[in-house]
């Protein structure tokens, strides 16, 4: 049980995919112009990551070593397409914003990375917790980046206007350069907290 919780927490802080492993940055930079986009992309990725981790873990003794990569890609692509279609049908508003990024989950290296490094070697329950932890780590990272960018770039948070409509905002934070600046500063901040914690303990 302890190992499960450790695996779960690993993705949230110590091995956070965005801030620590720094993988899968393409969707991070592209979709985080608002906090809500961050939540949506994070949850979609979490779902695909957890499902594919579980399935790949179940099939880990069946899949021959030499064709493992195409097998992983088929599994991940299937779940991504299912998420795409279901989101289009059930949450059309969110789909309008995230639509073009959902198919990109297929090539998000977090998924291949976890499938290759973890799910293909561990029992199902561990793979599930690893996928869930990584997904939640990805989601909070995207939400935080989105929140910072939305507040600075548009003066709102989760679509709620915080300052008056006419107030000047830092438009650059809504644009791609703002994503790089925000991610850089947040990584620096997270490193600072980690160093402090290590010194304290």
């Amino acid at each position, binding site marked *: 049980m302890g190992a499960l919780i450790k695996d779960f927490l690993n993705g949230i802080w110590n091995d956070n995919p965005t801030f620590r492993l720094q993988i899968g940055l393409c969707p991070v930079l592209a979709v985080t*112009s608002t906090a809500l986009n961050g939540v949506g992309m994070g949850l979609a990725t979490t779902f695909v990551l957890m499902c594919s981790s579980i399935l790949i873990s179940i*099939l880990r003794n*069946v*899949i*021959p070593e*030499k*064709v493992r990569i*195409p*097998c992983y890609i*088929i*599994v991940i*692509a*299937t779940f991504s*397409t*299912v998420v795409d*279609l*279901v989101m*289009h*049908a*059930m949450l*059309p508003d969110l789909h*309008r914003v995230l639509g073009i990024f959902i198919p990109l989950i297929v090539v998000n290296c977090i998924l291949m990375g976890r499938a290759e490094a973890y799910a293909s070697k561990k029992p199902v329950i561990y793979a599930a917790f690893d996928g869930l932890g990584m997904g939640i780590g990805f989601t909070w990272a995207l939400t935080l980046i989105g929140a910072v960018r939305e507040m600075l*770039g*548009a003066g709102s948070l989760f679509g709620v206007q915080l300052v008056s409509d006419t107030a000047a*905002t830092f*438009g650059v934070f*809504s*644009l791609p350069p703002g994503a790089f600046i925000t991610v850089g500063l947040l990584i620096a901040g997270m490193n600072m907290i980690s160093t402090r914690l290590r010194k304290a303990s």
Partner: protein
Amino acid sequence: MNESVRMIVVLAVIAMVSGGVLSFVYDWTGAIIAENQLRQMESSVFEVLPGAVRVEPLGTAPSTLVQDDPETSREVEQTTTQIFVGFDAQDKALGYAFVGEGPGYGGAVRILVGVDGESGEILNLAVLNHAETPGLGSKIEEASFRNQFKGKTLDDPIAIGRDIDGISGATVSSRAVAEAVRRGFADAAAAYERSR
């Protein structure tokens, strides 16, 4: 089992299962997606034709392109204009709404324009979808920009810098909207007249 046979069998089975799952999900969601899109279009028509309670598609008409001036004009393929007729509670035709498309900064900008059937004036304009820069080009959705088109008729130039003020920092996006209006207007008006 021979190793290479095993490889082929495993990969084939995985591919077949995902194919099956995908076709099932596609079938299941396809109808809902089409329904959603229809609903969305209908509610947009209600938005641009105040007072309408029922919408009927009028089919499509080929649109002709009216260009600003040779400097800014670009080659654009002919687009098809979707036209809808709005009816009020007494089932009297109020006017029509047409879909226009113009080339924006991040791809096509699609708009829906509502026109009064009697006076031929634009009643309202809604942006259906666009991929313009957030914070700059996305301002084409704001009422202060869209309201400038209200009251325009076929006789007006409907061009940025002439009778419509563009959004600063978003010239291409502003032009895309004006062009989208111009492109479908004449055809839609003619098609509506014919249907009366």
